[in-house]
């Protein structure tokens, strides 16, 4: 028995086991997703008549959502197979106006799926971001024609109020998004977005380059965009674009009756640089 020889051999086992520790030192890549809150988008005209009505958009609030195919593990979603929806507030308001119209709108009320008309949906190229942390959707389209909003007659029961509303003619809009891409890192979970947009309304077409950041924050000055707790990642390079007007948060005009200047020019916080836009 030579015990002195056996222990060292066995003593090597722990060392050998430690050598195979290996394993990854990097964290997992996140799945492709859009952000869950609204985006503030800046529209930059790239093609079309700058004086045409459809070229007047300076920006918009965009709603986005990520969907996943069915058929994942144990009845769950297939995270490797996502798609995205983009819904501009401008288009959404056209539909909302008809939805909330005081009287039935022929060709609209009762139609199935009218509330989804403004959604542009497209599939992601992959479930995971590319080497530049970008997730791509090549094409997302939506087009619809909102029917005429009928005229409303005066209510004879209320003599002192005139309820008369003129008819609003039908309008057709089309959004064709191409080369849409989102920054997808733990630090920017789809919160920076860039795409090309071909917008058509009632025969007028304009093309824009769109850059957006989530969440949408209203601002008057650049400082409003870096306030702690406003939801925007503090490392992002952002600035206030007062040219964009959100109809749900309209500018306030000066009241000529008072000496003070009440005018407030509301804008939206937008990315100061192309994505990735960091300080």
């Amino acid at each position, binding site marked *: 028995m030579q015990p002195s020889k056996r222990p060292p051999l066995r003593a090597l086992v722990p060392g050998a086991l*430690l050598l195979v520790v290996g*394993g*990854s030192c990097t964290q997992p890549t996140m799945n492709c997703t859009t952000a869950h809150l609204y985006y503030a988008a800046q529209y930059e005209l790239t093609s079309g008549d700058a004086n045409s009505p459809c070229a007047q958009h300076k920006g918009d609030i965009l709603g986005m*959502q990520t*969907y996943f195919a069915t058929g994942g593990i*144990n009845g769950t979603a297939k995270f490797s197979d996502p798609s995205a929806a983009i819904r501009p507030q401008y288009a*959404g308001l056209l539909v909302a106006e008809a939805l909330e119209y005081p009287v039935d709108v022929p060709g609209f009320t009762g139609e199935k799926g009218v509330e989804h008309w403004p959604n542009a949906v497209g599939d992601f190229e992959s479930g995971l971001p590319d080497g530049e942390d970008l997730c791509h959707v090549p094409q997302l389209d939506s087009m619809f024609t909102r029917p005429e909003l009928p005229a409303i007659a005066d209510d004879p029961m209320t003599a002192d109020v005139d309820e008369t509303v003129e008819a609003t003619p039908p309008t057709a809009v089309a959004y064709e998004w191409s080369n849409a891409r989102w920054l997808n890192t733990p*630090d920017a979970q789809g919160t920076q977005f860039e795409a090309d947009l071909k917008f058509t309304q009632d025969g007028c077409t304009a093309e824009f380059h769109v850059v957006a950041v989530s969440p949408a924050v209203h601002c008057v000055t650049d400082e409003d965009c870096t306030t702690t707790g406003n939801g*925007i990642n503090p490392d992002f390079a952002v600035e206030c674009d007062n040219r964009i007007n959100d109809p749900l948060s309209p500018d306030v005009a000066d009241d000529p009756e008072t000496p003070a200047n009440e005018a407030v020019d509301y804008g939206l916080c937008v990315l100061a640089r192309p994505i990735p836009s960091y300080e």
Partner: protein
Amino acid sequence: MRRSAWITILGAVAAQAAVVSTAEAGPSDAVLVGVVRDASTGEGIEGALVIVTGEKIQGERTMTTNVSGLYRIPNLPPGTYDVTVFAQDYGAGNKRAGLQLRAGTTIRVDVQLVRSGTREVIEVNVAAPTIDVGNGATGLSVDREMAQRVPIAIPTGKGAANRSFEAIAEATPGARNDTYGTSIAGTTSPENKYYVDGLSVNDPGFGLNGTGLSMEFLEEVRIEAGGYMPEHGRSTGGVINAVTKSGSNQFHGNVWAYYTPGQLEGRREIARREGDAIVTERNLNWIGDAGFDIGGRIIKDKLWFYGGVSIARTVYDLTSSWNRVSVDPDGNALIDPDTKFTVTERIAGTTQRFKAQGTTVQALGKLTYSPNKRNTLEILAIYAPSLSGGNGTFGMNAQTGQPEVLNLVGDYGALARKYRDNSTDLQFKWNWRDDDGKWNFDTILGWHHQLNQRNAVDGTRVGDTTGLAGTPSVVYRRTNNFYGADGGLLEPGMPGYREVHSLTDLTPLPGGAPGGACDPMMYSFTDPVLMDAQTRSVVCPIRQWTTGGPGLLYDRRLDRLQAREIVTRLARGAGHHVIKFGVDFEYTQYNSNRGYSGNQIYRESTNGTNFADFRMYSFLSGPDDANVIRNLNWNVMSTTIGGFIQDSWSIMDKVTLNAGLRYDAQHLFSGDRTLAMALPNQFSPRIGLIWDPTYSGKAKLFVNYARFYQSVPLNLADRAGTGEPGLQSFHNAVGPGSCSDPLAPGANDPGGACTNDANRLLIGGPADADQRWALASAGKTPIDPRLKPQSSDEIVAGGEYEIIPDTRLGVQYTHRWLHRAIEDMSRDEAATYFIGNPGYGIAKDFPKAKRVYDSAVLFVEKRFAKHWMITGSYTLSWLRGNLAGLFRPETGQLDPNTTSDFDLISLLENRSGYLPGDTRHSFKVFTAGEIVLGNGQFLRLGGALRARSGGPTNYLASHVLYGFDESFILPRGSGERLPWNFSIDPTVGYTKILRKDLRITVSMDVFNVANFQQILAIDERYTFDEVNPIKGGTMADLASATTTGGTPITVNPNFGNPTFYQQPRQFRFGIRLSF
């Protein structure tokens, strides 16, 4: 050879003492050191032979002294030993008998030999020194003797019924009970590492103790609170190691029974509450355990066995009754002028009695085989099934040891569940050592398995479509509204006027009650805060009522596979070295199948006009295209591989330097088999210095620095790392064909009133792609690429001195601080989350996670000898920071590393301050003694005394997204401190030796003998309103504070009122037969 001269003597000694080997290798081993000196010159004797024998080792262990007369014998299982020393020319041997060695300690025994020609062994009976001179670890060892003689484990809380070892850990200086176990050194209980014989038994999912083994099966529990060596890791709390008993050549066993009757309970203070028509009292019915164990030989000197069975049962009475608002003859509701509570009266004939009960069986078996001196093999198996709830009873929460409900505000089928919680452990150990004791190898292979099921009381399970598991849970919670938008008082019938539900709207009046006892009647209620006279009609108001199915059901299976190899090498070189190194591999797996009964929980809106899909596993595959997941089943796993090397270097027999390094790497994997989180490069340095100024094992001064890394429980890989997708829609509950009752036949079926799109409210704004559904949670939570593992640093220093034999006095100082924490965070107010280190990496704009613990401990310990023992400590401590640990004590949220502490930027203010575990002063005294009555009779006396100053309290408000108690209006700990808390737990017993090796003991433990009913918790919810934290605010700011809506705050009428009192007096009777 000089050794041959003594062969005959050695043989005789060995034959006498050789009994058994258990080879408790690894963390629980003791070390014996000392110097053999010439009695006349005082110089060390080189080449003296030291022989150690004892019931716990086979044969003997021998070692020769070095040039300075020093010897060192490691790897001794805890137990009683004899040491015999021989040296050439010193003729006589010198024997020290009855040395007690405790787990994990290094004890010094010096021997003086006299030169003489006699050949007789001189036997000296001197108590072993008690100072552990090889170790700078702080903590406590509780042996069988102390656990049986002192009533340490109180009959309440987790592990109470079977007096489990984790309950015993509370006796450690500075330790305290928390919701899920024992908190050590300011940490939370899931941060502890729990071992049974070196087998890790932590719940792989949540970090709690997974095998609450009864103290009856244990030889000793060793609690390492801090300063521990690199062989222990993966814990930022304490290390709690239970050492099981082993068999020997003689047959030994016990039969025991303990019983705590509820009838003898002291008067219970009832926490009074404003508001509800249902009041539930909870009283102990009985708690008890019984069992037996036996150990002995199968083949003498070769094969031994030990085994036992214990059964424990807990029964609580839950008695609920209906109460109505007291209205005077003038039609005014009565208000108690002192408490400002609405006065209520109990309605006769409405009392309903339920039981909450649970039963746990533990069976343990152990085989020890020692074919020769070099090898010892051991197999340990533990099976511990637990059942509770069902058949008209409520269940016990296995994580807290408490009944699952507080107040019976709902139907039985909705509030009660049937639980099955099993744990199984299997371990194989092999110890090999060479002949001269220089090499020692320990191989440990282990498997810990848990099954945790939460089923409906009718036996249906998660995923079932029939019975209660197929029925949705419905929560009614309509609120009062007596004020219009303009602030004016509303009268009944006016738009917006609304009252809470009357109990009889939701459940029938019990048959024994007078008819119409809850019928509405108009009365006037003067609001004690606003002093408005409101017109009300509901006399049996109920704020929340749950009906239908039981909600969340689950079937969890958890496994922990471990392989460990530890090598110990004794070496010499500028002193003695005990070098240990090893590898440690763990694979954990958590298969979690969960689902909501009937797919979801419906929750009524506070205005009563709709029901929300409050909880429903689901996801969207297209705009408003929802897919419901009946049961969400993920299987997540983790691998941890680590290694350590440490040297305990005894320099010139005066100073011991402990130095070492531990490395661990943990990788967690998601339910889709991909990496969820990587936590490599956990380098934990540990260094300590111990100096024995007496050079004789009677004193030590020590200082120790350590870094500890936390192992991340799998709950993170399951919930955040894989995802719990959920959606919400809102179902109109008003009008014909609406979802007014989700439990109506067909309402929850496909196309029913509560599942069709027609009744779903359009909640989307103009820019929302989904108009009917809102996302509650989606997939995985991304991880900061620069994430670092969670870790703590610690410095401990102290001294001990053996003032009289068997008794040591010590002081210790501990400074422990959180280095990095892992938490989830959101900077866009809960829209997206990520996991990172608060204050670092991409979370650098979040405050750093802080938890700083400082404590000074003064303690005295006299082990049981000469018929008495005492262990006492006084701890002065501070605990400050903004993160309590792996669970949130304020809400009980147990989501290790993903609590809500850092979630929202709007909640981050005021979070730093005194943490809930902050206890300034704590006294603990445990003592026991026996009076010899003669004729083989003993009277046993003893007891436990605890005194503790009260903890901090807070001013909490609701948060718009996170709900109640998540907003600290004032800085943490701004509230009035809770009062001191005392408890005196005496015990008295009688032992009679019936015949040789057979004794009977009867005992009575009295817990809280004075029946102190001190307040342990108060309602810290300052308001139900949504209020943002007032940065650095003081009490003066409260008056002017407003809700997030800008309106004045309505103070919670219960704020500051006691919610929890000390356990009343309880008696525990015990009987034990030992042979």
